[in-house]
């Protein structure tokens, strides 16, 4: 539990770090967060800012940790190309791509437009592909899954309560159509999150 005297920036940084470390094992994540928290503990706002600047971008920390755990699994093969140079160089280069660059794009696009090819099922296939991707965090995947359902439920409730319709369609039909189209917006959001993850943070 953060005590009230912990600077806001520390709380925010630790939360970001937890989120970025999601792809790693629970144990590794716990260790890294504990180590960083220990370092920031007791620092006032100014000192915390400085230390946080020295620690670096949480996404970069997560990428280097992942590279280290993945390269350990491939240990014993010195010619293995699996150690991504970008993260073993001592410079905040782009985060390690953990899967082919085209995969998350195809997943997101299938999610967005799937229903127009094969109604409902196309979107479900796209959603499945999104879940299998390593590009998005579990929270983001849950949002993508639940948002169309939420749109349907909220839309349905609104139509029930207000009896509103549009151009010959009753409220319920409208809610269904909105739910079917919501993957377009959600998919665009997923693509934006993916792009943000691949682009190196400014120093």
């Amino acid at each position: 539990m953060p005590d009230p005297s912990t600077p806001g920036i520390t709380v925010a940084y630790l939360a970001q770090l937890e989120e970025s470390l999601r792809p790693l094992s629970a144990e590794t994540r716990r260790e890294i967060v504990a180590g960083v928290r220990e370092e920031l503990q007791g620092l006032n706002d100014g000192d915390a800012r400085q230390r946080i600047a020295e620690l670096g971008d949480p996404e970069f920390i997560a990428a280097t940790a992942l590279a280290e755990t993945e390269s350990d699994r491939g240990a014993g093969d010195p010619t293995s190309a699996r150690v991504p140079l970008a993260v073993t160089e001592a410079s905040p280069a782009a985060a390690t791509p953990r899967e082919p660059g085209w995969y998350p794009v195809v997943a997101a696009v299938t999610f967005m437009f799937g229903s127009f090819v094969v109604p409902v099922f196309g979107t479900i296939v796209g959603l499945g592909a999104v879940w299998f991707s390593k590009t998005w965090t579990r929270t983001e995947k849950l949002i993508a899954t639940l948002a169309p359902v939420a749109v349907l439920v909220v839309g349905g409730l609104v139509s029930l309560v207000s009896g509103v319709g549009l151009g010959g369609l009753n409220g319920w039909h409208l809610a269904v159509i909105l739910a079917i189209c919501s993957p377009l917006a959600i998919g665009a959001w997923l693509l934006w999150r993916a792009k943000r993850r691949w682009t190196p943070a400014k120093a």
Partner: protein
Amino acid sequence: MSADVGAQLRKGVVESCVLGQLALQPMYGWQLSEMLVGHGMIASIGTLYPILSRLRAQGLVSTYDEESAAGPVRKYYELTEAGTRQLDNFRDQWIPFTAAVRTLIGTDDTNA
């Protein structure tokens, strides 16, 4: 191959570098991270903790908690006896190894 020479070299020695630092004195995470990042051996503190996990799993490093004067409890890492032996082993091999490599790779004006 040319571009990831540095990465391959570091991969082979970074654990021994951690052992070498801990031989001087027990250290906490940030202390170790600063030293290794400063020497270009690791990219961030994120790289360090999986390494420390491995060393602990191999029984080369152990930890203890200690309150600092300023208040926060810190987790310190220290060498075990096995870790000390491992470091000595590495030190014994390192000098002859670098000498052999230097001979084999030559310089710009010896090997073509």
